[in-house]
């Protein structure tokens, strides 16, 4: 490497050419690098290592929650008789622990209906989180629709979008029966055909190519 410093210090000289400066301390014939250059590289390298030792753990600390999946949480919301197939019953349960009321969420639960090819012994739990931007929707019994107050999203009885800006049907929660009680579990999203996929945030399309444009996050639970 014939860089500028080498030329000045005379580490590399063209044959037959006199070096016009005295050799620097420590110079020996045939050296490939000046002492100054070795120290420069070493100091910068050490500085880089020290910087990385601070920055990398700090950044990792900040982004770690992306890859962390919490414990699966199931909560009993009422006996089997509480729920019917032709209308929803509103339940409130804790989705995120440790922040009091702010961690609670609302689901609308009904029994599976043969009208929609559902198992009559199963329960459907529809999330009240609008999939447009996350406002709370309300089930309007007279219309049989879910209606969002923020930007006018409308969903039909099954939670499929029938109007407004939402991009997919309403999310659902896994359900199971334990000891005569209906329990709700992790959230999952559905495609426009109501096929379960991993939970997506509001505003994100599901199904088809959208599964790649809005990839599933490691922090969510696998779809049922």
């Amino acid at each position, binding site marked *: 490497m014939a860089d500028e410093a080498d030329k000045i210090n005379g580490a590399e000289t063209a044959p037959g050419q006199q070096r016009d400066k005295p050799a620097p301390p420590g110079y020996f014939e045939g050296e490939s690098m000046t002492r100054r250059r070795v120290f420069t590289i070493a100091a910068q390298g050490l500085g880089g290592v020290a910087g990385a030792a601070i920055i990398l753990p700090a950044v990792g600390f900040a982004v770690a929650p992306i890859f962390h999946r919490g414990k699966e949480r199931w909560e009993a919301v009422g006996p089997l008789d509480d729920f019917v197939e032709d209308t929803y019953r509103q339940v409130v349960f804790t989705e995120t622990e440790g*922040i009091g009321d702010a961690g609670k969420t609302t689901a609308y639960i009904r029994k599976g209906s043969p009208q929609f090819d559902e198992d009559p012994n199963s329960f459907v739990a529809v999330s009240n989180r609008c999939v447009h931007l*996350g406002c709370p929707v309300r089930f309007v019994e007279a219309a049989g629709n879910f209606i969002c107050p923020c930007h006018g999203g409308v969903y039909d009885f099954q939670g499929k979008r029938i109007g407004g800006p939402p991009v997919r049907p309403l999310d659902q929660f896994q359900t199971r029966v334990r000891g005569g009680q209906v329990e709700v579990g992790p959230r999952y999203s559905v495609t426009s055909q109501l096929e379960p996929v991993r939970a997506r945030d509001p505003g*994100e399309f599901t199904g088809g190519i959208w599964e790649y444009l809005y990839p599933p996050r490691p922090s969510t639970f696998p779809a049922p």
Partner: protein
Amino acid sequence: MPKISLPKIPDKVVPAPLRKPAKPGSTDAKGQAPQDLKSAPPERQTHVQKLTDQAKEAPVDVLAWVDQRTGASGFLTGMLYRKVPKGTNWFYTLGSATLFAFIVQAVTGVFLAMFYTPSATQAYASISHINNEVPLGALVHGMHKWGSSVMVILIFLHMGRTFFFGAYKYPRELNWVIGVVLLILTMTMAFTGYLLPFDQRSFWASIVGININGTGPVVGPYLSDFLRAGPELGATTLSRFYAIHMLLVPGAIIALIGAHMYLVVKLGTTAPPWVKAEKPKVAAPVAQLDAGVESNGHRGNGSAPTA
């Protein structure tokens, strides 16, 4: 606009290192001793007079001591007495106004932090405490809350001024880029600060804001998880927003404001677009000189043709 002439600050008041440098050729009585030294030389002064003079000189002496060790006066006179172009007007104060709004936010923010608890279960109660029980708490909180809107409005007006006056052009492009980063950081401050009171409006506005972030393809979902510190808005979301709001972004803003202002002083400001450049009186562009010599019969005139 009527011209207002401000009274000049007498030179006696300004410490010597900070005095405006005299214009060349304007000095009179060069090399002459000041009048009071002639009429009352030091050897004729009384003890009290000497002490009074020393006391008068003390602030200047302190400044001189600092100046000798920092060389700050050269920098300060260069910065404070720098030339500004003709036509400089009130629109040029928008940047300083934005800076003032930031200082208000920084100062009130420090005092709010003395009472605020960044915990999901106590944040709302601590804000209520500030507003209802702390003396002047509602005022300081109000200044911070409304001041944030003021800062966002001012930074946009400042950007508009820069854009419409063409002040982003060479050689000030880098300052425009720094300004855009400052705009983004200011919006980040507004967004993260909105959650901190943790009332219904904060909560839902932050959910909507995070979900808008999440609609970005491919990286959006991960960005949402990063902002929330998990799949749902939870206990750590508030601490995270708090840390971004009062540690991470303010530091970056202060550093970038320093760079922004350094470049303003270094490059100078632009004249407004309606101020035409004065035509040169003596020197003319080389092309004109050539043309003049070739065709205008000025050959052998000996003086450059006036443009």
